[in-house]
């Protein structure tokens, strides 16, 4: 009986196949910077960087070890005096625009910005024509 209980507990404790490391997180993965102003800068940036292991989360939201290592990079670089946009550029140079949640106008993203402007222009043109015509009719009738 006792053996059975022990076996059941052993089964419950069984660790699934290793999929992640067991190393402690990087120093600044879960520790904030002392200076609240710098920490605010880092936090704002981390909220707009994509976690590469869990691609729908920002590195601020993710508990993946790699996201922790990325937070460490962000905080140590902020502490060393780098600007947030400089750090973002550093990551984009390594992973492409994909790593940033902050959209920028580039060769592949310009249609995203151009299409709404184009649509507004078309709507404005149609409205002007219609309203203008109306007014023309009215003045013609008067």
């Amino acid at each position, binding site marked *: 009986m006792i053996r059975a209980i022990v076996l059941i507990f052993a089964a419950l404790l069984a660790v699934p*196949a*290793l*999929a*992640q*490391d*067991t*190393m402690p997180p*990087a*120093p600044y993965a879960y520790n904030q910077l002392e200076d609240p102003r710098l920490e605010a800068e880092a936090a704002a940036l981390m909220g707009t960087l994509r976690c*590469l*292991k869990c*691609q729908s989360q920002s590195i601020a939201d993710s508990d993946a*070890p*790699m996201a922790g*290592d*990325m937070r*460490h*990079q962000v905080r140590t670089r902020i502490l060393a005096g780098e600007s947030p946009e400089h750090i973002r550029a550093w*990551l*984009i*140079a*390594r*992973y*492409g625009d*994909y*790593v940033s949640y902050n959209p920028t106008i580039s060769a592949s993203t310009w249609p995203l910005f151009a299409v709404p402007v184009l649509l507004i222009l078309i709507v404005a043109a149609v409205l002007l024509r219609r309203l203008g015509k109306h007014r023309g009719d009215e003045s013609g009738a008067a």
Partner: protein
Amino acid sequence: MRGRLFLWVPLALFAFIAGVAGYMLTQEKDEFVESAMIGQPLPDFALKPAFVGLPGAARSDLVGGKPRLLNIWASWCLPCIAEAPQLEALQAQGVEIVGIAIRDRPEDVASFLTRYGNPYSRIGADDISEVQLAIGSSGVPETFVIDAAGVIRYQHIGDIRPEHVPGLLAELEKAK
């Protein structure tokens, strides 16, 4: 009549977009994030040995003479076990492979190499993924071809399967 046809345009547009969305749903999603560092010089780094058996790895170990492979791996990574025989095959063909062990413990590195073979000339320990981030790698395993001038020439994402070996050898040849 022309006006009537024009009315169908929004519906056609909607059908087109719905069609594209439907088609994309059936496509396999590519989760790989490619490095943007291909064609760029390997960033400077110097890592301590990952265990006592082999020296650590620095940028200077990957530059000069011939192209080499830079293998990003970890003892806790299951696909790394799958690619171990292919790394050994590459090494047997005279390819120098420098390893970087991500977030790994010396004893785990040692026991992995005893169990699955050691194709590496040196292994650096990257405890906080700093070199991994610096070269635009987003997971383990990944393998980079570094040419003699220290320029990153090619990236293989995921484990190296037997069918990938000729391609990697060709990339190494191209990097000469």
